[in-house]
């Protein structure tokens, strides 16, 4: 599908049109997808050729996107779509930023997938390759789309292809159900987005984004569009209370797919919110920010608390994704607040934090998900209670995962910390807001963010510690094999991303600065102008952070301590059995479990959970303890909703009770009513 018509002012003159190249990558992915269909069951071809080639495409995309970030917008129109509404594509900085994320992640995940799909997953490998590359291509086109129709088509294609990927192993009923829930929420969300576009086009019948930008909506319609967008994109992102699909779908999917979904697909929802709020609607209203902030924080807190008590490693990560999405939404909310009060530089700071976190989360969460894939393949086990001690038989995976875990826990000097730092900084600047009420909210919000960050650390320690440390809880774990070459390559790439994001914030912010310029008309000028290794958002007296120096400091202390100890004393070491607490019958199953690790959280945040406990009594011959942690939203919102639908359906079903006389009566009464109505 090479672009036929490419417009774009000056750019037409230049040979280097980024958009063409991006579309070329998309075309290549689609081609791979088609090849996949024709090589349905040829595993070697699919795994060793198609996926690596797809990964190379991702690398190309990364490069193009990086160079396109600084460029001016480019547009293209494809001759497909609706007659008066052919697909419009536009590459501006915002799109380029998300393309960069998609490209960067797809390199790692594709490389990993090349090694991952070993045995059939229930779906022929060729079909998986088809769906996978279609998924990638549709995500790229979502962020490129410049009219509502193209956007919706790509958005739903994305949902559909990922749905089929999620249900790759469709023989398992739970997986089917998870996929169903996912697609249902995605579809209802998509209708919300569609209605949002319906508002934005303002009855002009022109669905291009250019037209939507030009429309001046009244506050009522603008707010309606905002709420619909929040609902639609929120359903995809997994904000409260639309998150229920996420912890089901992510564990069900094959790990590379979970990685893509969590790392990239959720971000397309962020893209959508940014696009609608800052680009299409342009003049935000302050309470939007407040709403976003509230919803975001609630989501984040909910996500992290649930993550802390999970016992399935992929569910844990899924909840952690919910947490991160919540943080992103609260950051956007803050940006909206600032922007609504005309404090553009502050809005830029908050947005930078959001974008940084988008990239950071993409890398570390993908890394963690593919890592769980490696563990899953090696052990066949997702339950934390049956893992343990894998660092000894899977050192590669473990050490690379450690980077992801630290980044995810928001610890310096890795990527997750930078965004958290920026976010907290922007909160500290918010007392400048001209509303006393909002200012009072700030400490509470900042405190919550700090709490969420700390809880994320708790969760990640549990995650890494229970899987990789300690002793294997099952005999057969000792035979677990380390990741294969392709898998290692993919994981290393993603880990490298985490490190780069952690250590080079100034450089990275310089790269993404055009995005904030585009969205709020302000950038992080001084921070980049400093150009050093020190990140200075406003002024050096106010705040600064230098992760490289930071790392150097820790490393130097580490090295010095090590050398001095060796020099002044000795390096003698003796291996011995660990202390058994005077109880020689201790075994690996007596280690603290994932449930145990989550126990304090369960206790402190008890109202969050819907817990079903089975406690043993002192007189039980074979005592057993079980706790099931449920989600209140299921019981308070979704089950009543489902019951309501069913009751309504039963009521309406009474209409059709089989008697022809009654049917005739319906027609008769209807006729009477219509006649009476038209008589007026």
């Amino acid at each position: 599908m090479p672009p036929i018509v490419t417009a774009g002012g000056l750019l037409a003159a230049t040979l280097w049109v980024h958009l063409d190249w991006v579309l070329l990558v998309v075309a290549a992915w689609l081609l791979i997808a088609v090849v996949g269909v024709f090589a349905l069951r040829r595993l070697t071809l699919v795994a060793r050729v198609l996926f690596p080639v797809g990964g190379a495409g991702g690398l190309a995309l990364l490069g193009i996107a990086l160079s396109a970030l600084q460029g001016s917008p480019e547009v293209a129109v494809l001759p497909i779509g609706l007659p008066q509404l052919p697909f419009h594509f536009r590459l501006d900085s915002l799109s380029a930023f998300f393309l960069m994320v998609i490209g960067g992640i797809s390199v790692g995940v594709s490389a990993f997938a090349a090694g991952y799909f070993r045995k059939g997953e229930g779906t022929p490998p060729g079909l998986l390759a088809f769906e996978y590359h279609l998924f990638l291509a549709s995500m790229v086109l979502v962020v490129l789309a410049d009219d509502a129709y193209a956007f919706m088509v790509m958005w739903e294609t994305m949902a559909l292809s990922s749905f089929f990927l999620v249900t790759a192993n469709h023989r398992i009923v739970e997986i089917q159900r998870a996929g169903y829930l996912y697609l249902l929420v995605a579809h209802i969300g998509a209708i919300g987005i569609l209605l949002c576009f319906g508002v934005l086009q303002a009855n002009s019948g022109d669905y291009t984004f250019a037209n939507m930008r030009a429309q001046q909506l009244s506050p009522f319609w603008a707010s309606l569009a905002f709420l619909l967008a929040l609902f639609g994109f929120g359903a995809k992102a997994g904000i409260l209370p639309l998150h229920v699909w996420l912890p089901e779908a992510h564990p069900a999917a094959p790990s590379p797919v979970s990685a893509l979904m969590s790392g990239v697909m959720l971000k397309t929802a962020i893209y959508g919110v940014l696009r609608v709020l800052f680009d299409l609607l342009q003049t935000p209203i302050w309470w939007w920010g407040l709403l976003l902030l509230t919803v975001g924080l609630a989501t984040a807190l909910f996500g992290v608390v649930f993550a802390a008590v999970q016992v399935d490693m992929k569910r844990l990560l899924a909840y952690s994704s919910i947490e991160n999405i919540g943080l992103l939404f609260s950051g956007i909310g803050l940006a909206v607040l600032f922007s609504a009060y005309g404090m553009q530089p502050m809005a830029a700071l908050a947005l930078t934090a959001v974008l940084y976190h988008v990239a950071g989360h993409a890398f570390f969460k993908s890394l963690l998900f593919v890592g769980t894939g490696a563990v899953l393949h090696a052990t066949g086990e997702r339950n934390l209670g049956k893992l343990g001690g894998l660092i000894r038989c899977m050192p590669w995976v473990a050490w690379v995962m450690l980077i992801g875990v630290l980044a995810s826990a928001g610890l310096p000097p890795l990527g997750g910390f930078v965004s958290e730092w920026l976010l907290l900084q922007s909160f500290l600047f918010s007392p400048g807001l001209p509303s006393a009420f909002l200012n009072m909210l700030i400490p509470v919000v900042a405190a919550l963010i700090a709490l969420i960050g700390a809880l994320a650390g708790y969760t990640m320690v549990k995650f890494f510690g229970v899987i990789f440390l300690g002793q294997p809880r099952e005999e057969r774990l000792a035979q677990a094999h380390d990741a294969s070459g392709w898998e290692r390559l993919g994981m290393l790439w993603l880990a490298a991303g985490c490190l780069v994001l952690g250590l080079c914030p100034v450089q990275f912010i310089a790269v993404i600065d055009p995005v904030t310029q585009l969205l709020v008309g302000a950038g992080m000028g001084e921070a980049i102008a400093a150009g050093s290794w020190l990140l200075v958002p406003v002024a050096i007296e106010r705040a600064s952070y230098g992760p490289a120096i930071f790392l150097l400091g820790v490393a130097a202390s580490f090295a010095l301590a090590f050398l001095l100890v060796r020099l002044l004393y000795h390096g003698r070491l003796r291996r011995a059995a660990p202390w058994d607490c005077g109880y020689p019958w201790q075994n690996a199953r007596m280690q603290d479990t994932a449930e145990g690790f989550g126990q304090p959280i369960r206790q402190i945040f008890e109202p969050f959970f819907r817990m079903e406990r089975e406690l043993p009594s002192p007189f039980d011959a074979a005592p057993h303890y079980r706790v099931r942690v449920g989600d209140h939203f299921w019981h308070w919102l979704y089950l009543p909703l489902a019951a309501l639908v069913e009751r309504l359906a039963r009521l309406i079903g009474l209409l059709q009770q089989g008697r022809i006389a009654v049917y005739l009566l319906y027609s008769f009464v209807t006729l009477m009513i219509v006649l009476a109505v038209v008589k007026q």
Partner: protein
Amino acid sequence: MTGLGAVSQLLEIVMALLLAPLLGGWINQWRAWLQNRSAPGLLQPYRMLHKLFNKESVVAEHASPLFRGAPYIVFGCMALACAIIPTLSTDLPLSPAADAIALVGLFALARVFISLAAMDVGTSFGTLGARREMLIGFLAEPALLMVLFSASLISKSTSLTTIVETLAHRELAIYPSLALAGVAFTMVSLAENARVPVDNPATHLELTMIHEALILEYSGRHLALLEWAASLKLFAYSCIGLALFFPWGIAEAEAPLALLLAMPVLILKLAIGGALLALLETLSAKMRIFRVPEFLATAFLLAVIGMLVSILLGG
């Protein structure tokens, strides 16, 4: 970076490394005196470190490199923390690398590593300790952050040096926000440094121990590093407290004389602080582990209220 800056930076690190165990010894002495016991020597901690360094390190058979590396990392973190907290001078070249938020992150990093290391061997106590340590961490960390933010809001900066400079130059008055923050900070410090009433550094009672459970498997030089790191942490917390609430006497840039004066002032402040800590520990009793979250949540709330007050009252 000025020459004097480099000197003060170096001086700070060295002083922290040297003085930290002494502070521990001082507190132990006071505790003994207050409890009518005969006190160990002031230099007892140094002797212990020396002994431990000399000893051979015994490591569990299946311990991973993480187990062996963690003490160094923890030690490195604490050393860096002491380097960026303005104790003697606010003219610190390393300070811009990490502000108040990064300082909290640094403590968190150390905590995560020591917890992971504790889980590595796979004994019940290690994991138990890790869990408790993280539990304290996730409540204490935000509380500490809030305390620092209260100060940040006054000085409009998260940079530690700026905070201290601003606070030192304000006229003497009662600041309710700082008072609240002070109480919160004290509570957090007690928890973070494994002091009574949260933990008892002097006991190995299995059901209640936190810090000791974490390092149960360590011996020899690794244990020495961890002990040293723990004392560095106490030192760092003391210095934060002094810098935030009693910032007078800390030298500023281009003031060599003040730098010379700063050292005895600091030692004096630490001596008083240590004695007070010992008093506090003696007066209170160890609380049940299940009460700890409540204790910390109180601290957290106090800190948040402090911040609210500082916004509402403008300081």
